[in-house]
């Protein structure tokens, strides 16, 4: 009976989910592998520091992103003030600036004899300003960099939730005699709670998996620990064990996020019969303050890193001239197109397979496999290499075939595969959320009109989902353009993207040289964000 149920769609969906789940399973499986001496040393020395730093970083970033994200969302959703329409979409441009590029800008501006020093010198003459310029490095620098780079998650999700809060809800507060402050804390904020929690969970996952900015500021977190265990001490087993701890922590956050999303019907969706809310006009003083807040956030989160990179790019034209822009652009876009194609196609097949099968097992496997997004890129890359090595040493050797390592490690194929695992959740969930809008009775109507499963997929689903497909494609593009650790570990020899070029220069303390690739990276990502801003802010 079970075998009768199986068809090509079910099998495809199962295989896709399994491929995505492999690195997670590898991390779990390698938990019991013997580790080297470094493990004992680490336990007695740095392990607690790693955990402590990770927690401090996480808490700092969560507080800051909550404050910035929710305040901006509240202001642009409920009030009218100069520039509000601009800020509504401009604030999401912060997505274009990866935390590591933000970190470079922060350091470049505030370091001794940095940009701030030059500005002061040009304005007020040459004295030693260095003691008066605040330094944003170490933990503070990392918290600021990550927060300004990630607050967009909280902003976007909270804004959507605020946007769909109906006038009825606000009027209910007025009816009960609530002040504006009380309405905010008792009605508006609680009704957006799931969205805020969802945004903060994404921030938390990204923070814990951040590698670029923490390594730049020299903060030892669990993620950098994994990298060190593997690269510096060649202890893959320990890297996997640390990954395991981090994975458990991240999976707990993921479950929390998933749980909160299930109840995401707190806010009332505007449909006929529910009044749409009108924004409130602020008086001039309050309007100025609202404008100032949003303008400051926009400046700090987006303009500041862009201007800093632009300043350097112009001041050091030699670095720009040395850059093979065409090569970097074509490499970046090659990865974007290949990954988008693979991710969207396979997500479609897997979602349709799941839809047809309605199998609990397949659903559990999919839920498990999409947690790949919550796993730091480094862990995925390490786990993937571990798995390929194991597979090569056991299965491939057993059949006497030549090694397959070179096909998957240090190759475009391997890189795309790990991207696939990392961003599968983004693609799959994006398509799934649109799929959920198509009720099952639509499929059934098609069958009853004589359409086969395949024809239903091609003639009914694909035309309906083509917009979501494009949106998902662009979101994948933004992520891949910014992605650093996977590209760094998995890329073929001499294959560089804007992200890896910027990182390599920055890690050699050549921040000026990192400016041009960083600037191009931000420009391309901003372009993709702009063309999808309407969808991002709506859905």
């Amino acid at each position, binding site marked *: 009976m079970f075998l009768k149920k199986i068809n090509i769609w079910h099998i495809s969906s199962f295989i896709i989910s399994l491929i995505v789940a492999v690195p997670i399973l590898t991390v779990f499986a390698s938990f019991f592998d013997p580790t080297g001496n470094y493990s004992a040393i680490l336990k007695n020395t740095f392990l607690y520091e790693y955990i402590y730093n990770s927690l401090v970083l996480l808490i700092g970033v969560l507080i800051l992103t909550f404050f910035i994200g929710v305040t901006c969302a509240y202001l642009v959703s409920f009030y009218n003030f100069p520039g509000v329409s601009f800020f509504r979409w401009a604030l999401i441009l912060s997505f274009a600036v990866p935390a590591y590029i933000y970190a470079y800008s922060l350091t470049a501006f505030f370091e001794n004899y940095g940009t701030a020093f030059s500005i002061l010198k040009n304005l007020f003459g040459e004295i030693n300003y260095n003691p008066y310029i605040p330094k944003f490095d170490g933990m503070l620098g990392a918290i600021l960099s990550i927060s300004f780079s990630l607050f967009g998650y909280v902003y976007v999700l909270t804004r959507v939730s605020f946007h769909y809060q109906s006038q009825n809800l606000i009027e209910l507060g007025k009816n009960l005699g609530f002040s504006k402050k009380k309405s905010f804390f008792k009605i508006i904020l609680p009704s957006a709670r799931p969205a805020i929690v969802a945004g903060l969970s994404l921030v938390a996952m990204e923070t814990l998996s951040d590698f670029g900015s923490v390594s730049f500021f020299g903060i030892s977190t669990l993620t950098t620990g994994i990298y060190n265990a593997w690269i510096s001490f060649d202890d893959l087993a320990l890297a996997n064990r640390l990954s395991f701890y981090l994975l458990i922590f991240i999976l707990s956050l993921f479950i929390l996020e998933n749980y909160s999303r299930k109840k995401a019907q707190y806010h009332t969706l505007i449909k006929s019969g529910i009044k749409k809310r009108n924004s409130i006009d602020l008086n001039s003083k309050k309007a100025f303050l609202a404008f100032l807040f949003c303008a400051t956030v926009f400046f700090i989160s987006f303009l500041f890193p862009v201007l800093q990179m632009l300043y350097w790019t112009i001041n050091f034209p030699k670095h720009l001239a040395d850059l093979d822009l065409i090569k970097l652009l074509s490499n970046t876009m090659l990865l974007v197109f290949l990954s988008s194609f693979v991710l969207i196609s396979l997500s479609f097949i897997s979602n349709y397979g799941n839809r047809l099968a309605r199998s609990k097992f397949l659903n559990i496997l999919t839920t498990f496999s999409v947690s790949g997004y919550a796993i730091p890129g480094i862990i995925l890359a390490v786990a993937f290499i571990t798995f390929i090595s194991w597979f090569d040493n056991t299965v491939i050797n057993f059949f006497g075939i030549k090694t397959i390592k070179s096909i998957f490690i240090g190759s475009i194929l391997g890189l795309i595969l790990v991207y696939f695992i990392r961003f599968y959740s983004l693609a799959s969930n994006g398509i799934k959320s649109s799929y959920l*809008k*198509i*009720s099952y*009775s*639509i499929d*059934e*109507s*098609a*069958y*009853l*009109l*004589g*359409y*086969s499963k395949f024809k239903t997929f091609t003639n*009914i689903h694909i*035309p*309906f989902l083509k917009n979501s497909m494009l949106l998902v494609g662009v979101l994948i593009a933004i992520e891949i353009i910014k992605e650093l650790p996977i590209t760094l570990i998995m890329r073929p020899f001499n294959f560089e993207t804007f992200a890896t070029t910027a990182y390599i220069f920055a890690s050699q303390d050549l921040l000026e040289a990192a400016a041009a690739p960083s600037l191009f990276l931000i420009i391309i990502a901003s372009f993709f964000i702009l063309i999808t801003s309407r969808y991002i802010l709506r859905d």
Partner: protein
Amino acid sequence: MIKNFLEIDNVTFAASAKNKVNNVSLRIENKGDIICLLGPSGIGKTTILRTIAGLEKVQSGKITLNNRVLSSKDKHVEPENRNISLAFQDNSLFPHYNVIQNIEFGAERNKSKKKNLTINEAVNFLHLKNVVNKFPHQISSGEAQRASLARSLVSNPDLLLLDEPLSNIDQNFKEEIQVKLKKVLTEHKITTIIVTHDSYEAFYLGSKCGIILNGQLKQYDDPYNVYHFPNSIEVVNFLNRGTLIPAKVTGENSLESNDLGTIKGNFIKHYPKGSDVKLLIQPEDLEHDDGSNLKLEVVDRQFRGTNFIYTLKTSSNLLIPVFVHSHHIHQHEVDEKFGIKRPINIDHIVCF
């Protein structure tokens, strides 16, 4: 060789462990017959349609259409290969196509066959002319339901299944569409099973009605018999068109009730003299007569346009409905006394 057009043999319809209709056997004898399935919400009526359409599998029994086995324990013809059309209760229009394109999807099926109904005919009789270029989200639920019905009708199916087809349609349209729908189905000989919870709709549209209660097909008969000769107390309670009062059988054609006195009529089933029974009193069984000495208290009066339904309280606090023609002079208010004509003669006596 099976003679019936559709045969459902001892099939258990189950969407879930809770939602089950057990051991249903049902026949549609001729092509073009219309039957209605009646039952309360959530009883499994839709599951029956979905199973016949092939969207659910049968666990036991057999479904045969036009001598072809569609479902059995070992066989399951996929829905797309059955040529059965199901119009869902909810809006199942393709959201990215407009109304006319949705209807055309239906017409694409069985292109080569002679059409029952053209797209234009369907659009006209279902009053869809003004919305043909609109998308499903731009039209009302009633319009969506009519569009879905049109799509099913033009698909030229061997068997048409309609799940609460008129539930979202405005009352002023509903009766007109009921009449036209029946005409279209009959003229084009479209064999149809209609699921509804509206007994008036079922009695009008169906040549036969099935009553589904407590996970079973309780009665399957023509509408007149279902109404006048319900075969169980559950069916009486479900139809809610009468009251059961205690009575004692006093002879071949008579009963005695403490509340109404002597009642005469033809028993549809034999009961020995002296038996205690529950007698079904339907609104049209009693006649108004203020000259009568049998007076009952009015507790409610419903004006239905063509008639009034009085609810009367007996001495033992039983509530009895009485039908009175709208133009009859009988304006009794609540708490007044209402006379019942004696002797009471009921055409057919139904007891349990």
